[in-house]
């Protein structure tokens, strides 16, 4: 998956100065229908997720699998991967994965991570990306309570009411996110669309397994700053002087039976 050799000089899709893949060669459509049947491979269960492909330096051979170490951060709809790159430096010991539905974009992030690993030996070993439909297959990748943080940054707003069920945050999908998040785990959402911001906040507010972080907690969390600065989409909004709407919530334990 990530084994492709990248030679910055020979390959025109890579920038000569930075060695990173150039975005113009990975043009993608802005939207992808999450409702359509998928044609990419999906792990049957979390135990089938091959860590050796994603993190070859941390999991060198197929034989000795470190059961202790699991993916703890998931960036859902990671886009061009800006947040992952930022997080990788901030949490060098944590395994994280980006999930993206558009194949070209996933390919770009893959190349970007590879290039960064080559130019910065020893770094960026803890990030990877996978092409998947996270609205359908989240439980195939993560066990119950496995994740510490989940990110939903600048998701597709799907304005039409008919298409609201395509939104990545909904009361029903939050059940699945709550399932893969550990108690105390945090879900980060941000958007520049006011209507969607209110929608995501109201979904999280109504869900019994999530509670909002206090203002002080938001202040202290270094990740919150990254939400609007690290991603390509966030930088674009900042350039155009747009406003953003965040909702950051914590997974709390369920009702006692």
């Amino acid at each position, binding site marked *: 998956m990530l084994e492709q050799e990248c030679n910055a000089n020979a390959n025109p899709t890579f920038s000569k100065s930075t060695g990173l893949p150039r975005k*113009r*060669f990975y*043009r*993608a*459509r802005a939207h992808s229908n*999450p*409702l359509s*049947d998928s*044609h990419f491979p999906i792990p*049957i*269960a*979390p135990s089938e997720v091959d860590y050796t492909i994603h993190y070859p330096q941390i999991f060198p051979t197929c034989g000795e699998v470190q059961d202790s170490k699991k993916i703890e951060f998931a960036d859902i709809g990671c886009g061009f991967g800006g947040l992952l790159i930022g997080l990788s430096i901030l949490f060098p010991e944590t395994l994280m994965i980006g999930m993206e539905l558009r194949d*070209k974009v996933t390919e770009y992030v893959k190349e970007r991570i590879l290039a960064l690993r080559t130019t910065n030996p020893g770094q960026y070993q803890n990030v990877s990306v996978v092409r998947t439909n996270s*609205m*359908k297959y989240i*439980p*195939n990748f993560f066990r*119950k309570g496995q994740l510490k943080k989940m990110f939903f940054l600048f998701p597709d707003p799907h304005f039409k009411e008919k298409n609201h*069920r395509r939104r990545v945050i909904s*009361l*029903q*999908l*939050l*059940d*699945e996110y*709550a*399932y893969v998040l550990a108690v105390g785990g945090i879900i980060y959402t941000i958007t520049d669309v006011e209507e969607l911001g209110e929608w995501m906040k109201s979904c999280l507010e109504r*869900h*019994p*397994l999530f509670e909002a972080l206090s203002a002080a907690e938001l202040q202290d969390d270094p990740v919150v700053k990254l939400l609007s600065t690290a991603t390509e989409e966030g930088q674009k909004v900042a350039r155009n002087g747009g406003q953003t709407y965040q909702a950051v919530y914590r997974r709390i334990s*369920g*009702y006692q*039976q």
Partner: protein
Amino acid sequence: MQEDADQHRETEVAPALIAVHPAQQSIAVAVGSDLRVFNLHEGYPAKLVDDSEEHNANTNVHKHSIRAIRYGAKGNLFVSAGDDKLVKIWKTDSWRCTSTVLSEKRVSAVAISNDGLYVCFADKFGVVYVVDVEELSKQSSTNKKGVPILAHYCSIITRLEFSPDGRFIISADRDFKIRVTVFPRNPLNGTHEIQSFCLGHTEFVSSLAFVRSLDHPQAFLVSGGGDSTVRLWDFTTGCLLDTCAVGEHEGFLQSNGKEDESSLPAVTDVCTSHDGSLVAVAIQSLAGIMLLSCNLSAKTLSIIKVISVSEENFIPTSIGSSSTERLLWMVMGASSLNSSDSTCVARVRVLSGFSGSNMESVEHETLILDDKDVPGGEVTLEKLQGSLLIEKQAFNAAAEAVKTAMRNLLIKKQYTEERREYRKRGRNDKKTI
């Protein structure tokens, strides 16, 4: 174009369904839009009474194909639902329809909570709704609707079940997922806490059942799927305990030699015996019924044998049994292909000796009953089948329809890589710079 049209017509065929009262007081069969109930306790066909305005005595209670029927665990309630987007709740003592719930989409599965307080139903969008039976019957409005409680993301839900202890609601979908959700005391606020996912099937999950016995009161889940396997699960943890590849069974391959290996026959229904020792498996295009033995202490499933029906190409589409009797009820049939044909063909057979912990009893006592030996006698069959004698031709036509319908109902259409790429040729992101 032609291909698409064929596909469309085949999916319109609805397989016949059977449901058995938990104490075998009555049997219900649904074929197409026709719901037939026979009262075994008193030995006469039950007359369905539906007071809802559009209904009159000459028409069926449902306007389109029925996709799900079932009795409650206590036997006093019965629910039927299907393509006419109506969920009808019946009292089984009078066979009066107490409430009709409107669904926004076609209904694909129903379940009744073990205490009989709630009815759940799932629609084609993968959303599960709940209604409070007591509250509902008090309402006078004709616009009765369910409250959405959970959703499988845009995957058709194939089966809904309550765990025997009533703590969980289990939903299976055509995307290989089985979701186990905590069913709270007040489910009208939603069921948000997922207990586990049972992941292991590689195709759609078609059927669910539970096994437990006196020695092992903790129930396990049995599931059958389009990947031609029957699996045993500890559903509270989502742990897969055993997989039984029924499609690879010798006897089956012989009887179905021409089938290519790439498309293994789908499991269409599973049913467990009340003592938890046997699992009956209905398989698409398998004439007969396969029996598995379930060892609850070793947590294994193993094939015992296939029981076929002599002189009849009987491929069950739906099976059921009560929680008291040792009989397995099987139905084969489908809604009529062309609407001009008014009567829908269905054939009902009964297997005796459906329980027993040792192999010997299974070997000797399992027997397909003759029509005259069926509980209630031939009158039962006359009601449930629509007529006592079924023409061989009609029977074979039904068998053929059932074969294709069962598979196309849930299987995902596969396109080649080239065809997909070809269809994307005009997209901006595919143009080379």
